[in-house]
């Protein structure tokens, strides 16, 4: 077990493995996406209070979950890279940041488009919205900090510290609707209570979340492969790759 695991922790073995996994995750993303959109638009009933406007939920919740989940994953890999000096882990963290930032933006964007018709405003400075905005800034800060440092291993270390300090924001986002009185509604899905929404709505939401999850895996692997090529361009394993033969 450990032999296999460590083998794939080295770029030259991970690179082809990641390449093989990308099409599978892409297909899964398409399948879950098709199922989620079908459930969300054609099976889930009209909401009693919000009419058809509530259908934004099918993208908003998944995007928000992913923005938080990617941050935790990014901080985890950055932390591993910092503690064990493993360059693959740090590259993984760097590869996740732009996708996480994109989902944080989409969470805010779809939230604004949902807030306008239902609350009467695009934006309020309430705890949930503000902490999600801070999450977007943490991602952008991480990306900018790494881009500002020329030496990759130093960039990894500086980014890791920022990512780890920022982790404290994720539980704040998650529990903000409980800790403070906010305009934002409570959690849509709770582990401790029976779901309050129609089963088809819940299922559609989960399918969309799975779609975004598979999408993230595919895209993060695509990006980490590019980063590996960029950073290790002078190594022997890159020179041996069939796709770089002149």
């Amino acid at each position: 077990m450990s032999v296999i695991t460590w083998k794939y922790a080295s770029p030259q073995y991970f690179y082809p493995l990641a390449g093989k996994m990308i099409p599978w995750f892409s297909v899964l993303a398409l399948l879950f996406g098709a199922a989620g959109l079908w459930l969300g638009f054609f099976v889930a009933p009209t909401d009693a209070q919000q009419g058809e406007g509530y259908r934004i939920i099918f993208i908003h919740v998944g995007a928000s979950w992913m923005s938080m989940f990617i941050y935790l994953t990014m901080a985890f890999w950055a932390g591993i890279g910092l503690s064990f000096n493993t360059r693959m882990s740090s590259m993984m963290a760097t590869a996740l940041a732009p996708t996480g930032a994109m989902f944080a933006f989409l969470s805010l964007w779809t939230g604004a488009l949902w807030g306008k018709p239902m609350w009467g405003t695009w934006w309020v400075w309430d705890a949930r919205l503000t902490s999600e905005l801070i999450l977007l800034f943490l991602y952008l800060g991480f990306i900018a900090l790494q881009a500002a440092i020329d030496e990759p291993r130093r960039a990894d270390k500086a980014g890791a510290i920022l990512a780890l300090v920022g982790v404290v924001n994720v539980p704040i986002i998650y529990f903000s609707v409980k800790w403070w009185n906010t305009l934002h509604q409570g959690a849509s899905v709770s582990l401790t209570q029976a779901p309050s929404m129609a089963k088809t709505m819940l299922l559609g939401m989960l399918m969309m979340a799975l779609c975004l999850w598979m999408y993230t895996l595919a895209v993060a692997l695509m990006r980490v492969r590019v980063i590996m090529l960029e950073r290790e361009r002078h190594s022997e394993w890159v020179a041996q790759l069939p796709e770089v033969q002149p």
Partner: protein
Amino acid sequence: MTWNSPAEFFAMGGYAFYVWGSFGVTALALLIEPLLLKKRRSEVLQSLRRELFAKGKSR
């Protein structure tokens, strides 16, 4: 089924701008990201190929 006609579907009960604005921008983002990555990858591969070719010639 909630919809009686395609027009009703696209109207989204009066929320068309908000619903399609959410799904449209998300779809666009999820489409553009992999395309940008494909471009970045082909740029790296091209420069690597050129580098290796130059090396092979000088050898």
